[in-house]
């Protein structure tokens, strides 16, 4: 009876969902709770029946969008290891096959293992050998989070051809990197290779994931950038009351009333909370996705990082699509079929009825994890694991070699080429430098730096509703901006724009929040006060006021508030520029100057300009509760009759905490007033300057927005045009220098051409003349040279003759030294004469030849050739 009932159920089930059928057929150990109850024997007929039905109903498989199929990959260009298997690999495949046979024999109800998919060259390759542990040369890729982020950014996701089966092909990480596309297995293989290279104890996992995860659907996730940091409220330490702390004054209010009041408050609060909760629940219901019919059957691949190496305190999963890390207890991971790294392959023998929550990741336990190859690390129980680990880390190779002898087999080296990422690709990151991720009520767009001309690298758009139609706010991140703009935050609901700047803006701007760029409207500017001479921290503006906050000034000013009146209409034409708003009131506050007594240190200064009054409030003394005050009625110096007004006692009203002798004096008051008058002038000037500065900043900002120039680091040899140009120029100069050294060409026609009238076409006659002149000049020079040599020759000969004569005359009287001198002179002179003679002869020989050569050259000269031709 029970069976029959089950049957009925089955049929209904089958008609509804093909998934359930699959679940029955598949009969996996790895299976979530939902499908577990269909665990019942089944007749063959029923199965056939269902199969028929199945063939009718089309499975809604997402089409493989991949643009890089086998055809597009140039297989022939791939290295040999991609196209064939070595002996060892063949052996391994045999081992794997036999393992697979044994496995299917022992566990007939489980799906076949994902052991040796085909690679891009249609060659079966064992999954472990597809992993190629590589340490990237970029320091940014040393930690798992940045690695995962890189992989998720760099590759674009392609869904599995069949979401319920592992893929038939698993391409090498190099190919995946080249085409920047892949399914979850490609993602996790690449990530696993990088993590293993960086020293993590990482594994590729073949298992089952939730729909959101398999399809990389983040629309139900809150964008991590929108999550506000929870302010950690520091529990204030309760200071134990000190021994002599004064007792508080007696509380005379009725306790009963208080209690009643608190009760009432609590009730209201509870009511409110209930309402809020209900609201939240309602919202959650709306947001909750409809249950997935294929829940628990969708194949997914991700990366498991075990604790131990690289100071990882606890094992965790990384989803390679999103680069998020999850605890091993997370709801998104519904089961594990097998896992592998570059050394071994383990099959999960534990029951996954409760997702992955109960799994124990002790790979050395052969009851829980069936290993494929004996004798690699982790083949020990975790009791000894720790010590083993340490050893194995150091001498993997050695160990492997040893184990080879006594044990059966070890993993052949990876067939994959070295994984390489070019710096350009690394910087560009996303395919084509752009990536869009849709989150719950948010959209995140990423760009590579320098891709956008305005330096935009990231934009986060937050929406009010789930359908993403009403924009709530936009956040834009910029990089390498010359104006140091870092983040632009636009709140659509209030229309408030907030710009954040990094240090280095020409006006030391830090934050600028505004609604419009028009002057004299509401805006707040914050500054890097260290970078400013006046120590301005913040300037708030409304249409009628301007408030400035300062820090670290030597005059202790920290606050200035200026109220403006209505603009007086001027008749003159150029009123637009030179008509500042009249200042009604300036309030300035000063911090305490420790060098002055409190009674003389002004705390607040109010210039009521329209009322011609100045109010001073002094600082409060340490042990007082009242502060001195003084008010000056600053009437104009000249009254309406033109007489000079003399200071009178009623022009100054003061209250002094401790009356002092000298402050009562008119002279003192007069001096104080004169000083204040000057200071009033200064303050007004300051206010005016501040206004000007605002205008200037606004103008500058507008210009910057329009130009949005980007800075390029001087170390960026590729982009830095200037340095490139400079370098090239340097190279060019060097080259030219080199050329010049080799040969300095002389223009023999230049002096003659220069005599001609410039910028006119040479006539034939002129050309002839030039030629003749040139030739005659050359002839003259040759003759001159011959004459010169001749003259020298004759001179030498004459001198020698004279000397000889002199010698013969005085031969008798000469000393031995003189004679020696004479002889040496003679030999030198003879030598010179001989040389000159030789040169003269050679010149005589060469001169006609040279002359002919020049003539020839002139005939062939490009400037003269046309005339010559005609002439000839």
């Amino acid at each position: 009876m029970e069976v029959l009932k089950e049957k009925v159920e089955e049929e209904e089930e089958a008609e509804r969902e093909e998934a359930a059928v699959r679940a029955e057929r598949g009969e996996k150990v790895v299976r979530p709770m939902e499908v577990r109850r269909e665990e019942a024997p089944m007749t063959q007929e029923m199965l056939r029946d269902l199969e028929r039905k199945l063939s009718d109903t089309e499975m809604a498989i997402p089409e493989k969008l991949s643009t890089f199929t086998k055809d597009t990959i140039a297989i022939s260009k791939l290295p040999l290891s991609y196209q064939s298997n070595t002996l060892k690999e063949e052996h391994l495949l045999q081992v794997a096959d036999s393992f697979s046979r044994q496995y299917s024999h022992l566990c007939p109800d489980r799906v076949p293992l994902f052991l040796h998919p085909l690679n891009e060259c249609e060659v079966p390759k064992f999954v472990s050998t597809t992993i190629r542990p590589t340490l990237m040369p970029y320091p940014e890729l040393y930690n798992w989070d940045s690695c995962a982020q890189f992989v998720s950014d760099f590759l674009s996701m392609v869904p599995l051809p069949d979401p319920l089966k592992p893929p038939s092909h698993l391409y090498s990480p190099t190919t995946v990197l080249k085409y920047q596309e892949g399914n979850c297995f490609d993602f996790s293989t690449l990530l696993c290779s990088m993590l293993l290279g960086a020293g993590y104890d990482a594994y590729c996992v073949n298992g089952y994931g939730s729909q959101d995860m398999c399809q990389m659907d983040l629309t139900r996730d809150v964008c991590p950038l929108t999550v506000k940091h929870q302010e950690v409220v520091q529990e204030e330490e309760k200071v134990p009351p000190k021994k002599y702390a004064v007792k508080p004054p007696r509380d005379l209010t009725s306790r009963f009333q208080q209690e009643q009041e608190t009760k009432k408050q609590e009730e209201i609060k509870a009511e409110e909370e209930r309402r809020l909760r209900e609201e939240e629940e309602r919202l959650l219901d709306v947001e909750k996705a409809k249950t997935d019919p294929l829940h628990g059957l969708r194949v997914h691949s991700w990366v498991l990082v075990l604790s131990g190496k690289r100071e990882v305190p606890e094992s965790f999963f990384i989803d390679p699509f999103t680069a998020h890390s999850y605890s091993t207890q997370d709801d998104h991971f519904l089961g594990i079929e097998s896992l592998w790294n570059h050394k071994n392959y383990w099959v999960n023998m534990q029951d996954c009825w409760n997702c992955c929550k109960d799994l124990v990741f002790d790979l050395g336990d052969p009851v829980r994890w069936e290993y494929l190859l004996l004798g690699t690390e982790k083949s020990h129980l975790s009791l000894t694991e720790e010590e083993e680990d340490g050893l194995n880390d150091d001498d993997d190779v050695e160990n492997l070699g040893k184990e080879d002898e006594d044990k059966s087999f070890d993993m052949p080296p990876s067939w994959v080429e070295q994984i390489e990422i070019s710096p350009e690709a690394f910087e560009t990151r996303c395919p084509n430098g752009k990536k869009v991720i849709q989150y719950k009520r948010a959209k995140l767009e990423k760009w590579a730096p320098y891709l956008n001309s305005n330096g935009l690298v990231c934009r986060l758009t937050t929406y009010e509703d789930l359908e993403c139609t009403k924009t709530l706010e936009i956040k834009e991140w910029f990089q390498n901006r010359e104006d140091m703009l870092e983040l632009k935050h636009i709140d659509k609901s209030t229309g408030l724009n907030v710009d954040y700047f990094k240090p280095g803006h020409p006006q030391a701007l830090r934050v600028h929040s505004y609604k419009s760029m028009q002057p004299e409207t509401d805006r707040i500017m914050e500054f890097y006060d260290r970078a400013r001479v006046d120590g301005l921290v913040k300037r708030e503006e409304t249409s009628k006021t301007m408030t400035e906050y300062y820090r670290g000034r030597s005059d202790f000013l920290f606050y200035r508030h200026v109220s403006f009146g209505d603009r007086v209409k001027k008749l003159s034409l150029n009123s637009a520029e030179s008509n500042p708003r009249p200042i009604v009131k300036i309030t300035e506050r000063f911090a305490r100057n420790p060098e002055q007594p409190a009674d003389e240190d002004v705390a607040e200064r109010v210039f009521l300009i329209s009322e011609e009054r100045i109010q001073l409030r002094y600082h409060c003394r340490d042990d007082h509760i009242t502060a001195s005050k003084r008010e000056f009625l600053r009437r104009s110096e000249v009254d309406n009759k033109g007489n000079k007004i003399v200071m009178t006692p009623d022009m100054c009203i003061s209250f002094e905490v401790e009356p002092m002798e000298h402050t009562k004096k008119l002279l003192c008051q007069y001096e104080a007033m004169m000083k204040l008058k000057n200071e009033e002038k200064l303050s007004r000037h300051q206010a005016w300057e501040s206004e000007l500065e605002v205008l200037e900043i606004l103008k500058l900002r507008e210009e910057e927005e329009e130009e949005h120039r980007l800075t390029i680091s001087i170390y960026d040899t590729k982009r830095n045009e200037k340095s490139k140009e400079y370098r090239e120029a340097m190279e060019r100069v060097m080259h030219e220098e080199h050329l010049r050294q080799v040969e300095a060409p002389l223009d023999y026609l230049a002096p003659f051409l220069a005599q001609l009238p410039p910028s006119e076409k040479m006539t034939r006659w002129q050309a002839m003349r030039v030629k003749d002149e040139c030739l005659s000049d050359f002839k003259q020079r040759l003759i001159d040279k011959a004459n010169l040599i001749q003259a020298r020759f004759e001179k030498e000969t004459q001198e020698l003759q004279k000397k000889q004569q002199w010698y013969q005359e005085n031969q008798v009287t000469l000393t031995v030294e003189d004679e020696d001198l004479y002889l040496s002179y003679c030999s030198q002179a003879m030598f010179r004469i001989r040389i000159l003679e030789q040169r003269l002869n050679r010149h005589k020989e060469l001169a006609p030849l040279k002359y002919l050569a020049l003539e020839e050259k002139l005939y062939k000269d490009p400037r003269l050739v046309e005339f010559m031709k005609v002439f000839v």
Partner: protein
Amino acid sequence: MNWLYDSVEPRVMDEDMLKLAVGEQGPRDEAGQLARQEGIVFKDVLSLRLDFQNILRIDSLWQFENLRKLQLDNNIIEKIEGLERLVHLVWLDLSFNNIEAIEGLDTLVNLEDLSLFNNRISKIDSLDALVKLQVLSLGNNEISHMMNIIYLRRFKDLRTLSLSGNPIAEEEDYKMFICAYLPDLVYLDFRRIDDHMKELAEIKHQYGIDELKQRENLSQAQLDDERAQREELEEHKAAFVERLNGSFLFDSMYAEDVEGNKLAHLPGVSELLQAYKDKFVIICLNIFEYGLKQQEMRKVELDTFNECVQEAIQENREQGKRRIAKFEEAHLLSLNAIRDESEVTNLEMKVAEHSKDITELFDMLMTLEMQLVEQLEETINTFERNIMDLVALFIENVQSLMAQCRDLENHHHEKLLEISINTLEKILKGELDENLPYDVRAVSTLFVDKDTIVNAVGTSHDLHLLKIDNREDELVTRTNSWCSHLVDAIHKDEIMRNRRRVKEIHQYVDHVQNELDNLECSEIID
């Protein structure tokens, strides 16, 4: 110079002259007018110029208490005097006078610039008080000895010195010597000293300077040591246990004890004495340590108390300030309202309302103050009780320790007596005569009969007890008086504080009320 002295009648610095000078050098224009109206008080004058007045004697300057700059150049002053009250003086010019010795500058600690150019000074001294001196002009004087330069080493801020026109400036080594011995000097005789010169000078006079420095360092170290010791002693005194950290008390017991010292030569007594001393010193040390510990405790107690009181006062003050700030806002508003009001009935109503506000403020402030007074009183009483208890405990324990001292003394006395009597007996029997050391023989006058020796030992004993008692008494009295002083001071301070605050509140409220009244008057007049 001198012809002036001969031919012109010296003038006296009198009120008129000063007034004239002040009037001439005072403010100008409108300010001057105002000043003349009110009259200038000498106390307010900051700078005064009295040159070319033929002044012979400095006088009548005592009123210029706040004077910063005084010029008395080109007179015929012969002696520096009458400047004692001008303690704020920064700049003093006494050039072109007939001064022969530097004197009368001991109170001018703020002086930075002193000019004694063209006088008859032959020795630099009596400038010790001028620690801030930066500029010293002593040109055209009669300084003839180089050693005067070394005196100037003590002025760490001295940067400018002029000595040209003195006999020493004629010496060939003059510049080098000064550069070497005053390395911080920047300008000498109105010229900048270049670094090269400095280096040369330093090399030349290296030995002399090193020696000098060594001496200076030594004396400095000595001074430091002394100061440290004094401080330590002060600390111990504050704990009332000074000089108990050694054998000082014991030594003082024997310092005036002739008999005791004599008896110490008896055989066996020296060992006894040594043992006694050791024990005694240990007890003294106990007292000392206990005293320091107690002092620490008292200090902690006092600090906590002060802190708490300060906190309470601060909080109260903040409250008061808040109230006043709040009131002031309302006050301004209502004053404006009253000013603008034209209707008489409304006006009166508003005025009445405002005066009510003022009274309310007064009440509130006074309530706050009274509350604070009550709170503080209670706290002060608690503190008083606690500190009294502490002191009583301290005294009690010290007394018990002192009693141990006395016991020791008694014990020692008995032993000594025994030995003495034994010795006396032996002497009387003539047994020990030969063996007695020479010292004992010297004291053999004591060993005449039993009474003498008992008396002698007794005197010694009494003296010792007296010393111990004195020390104890001193400690107890000082402790008690400290305690009562402290408590008195606290009470007094609190009362003063209260008075001041009440006065302040009254003053403020009066002022506010006045403002209102004035406004009212003017309104009515209008």
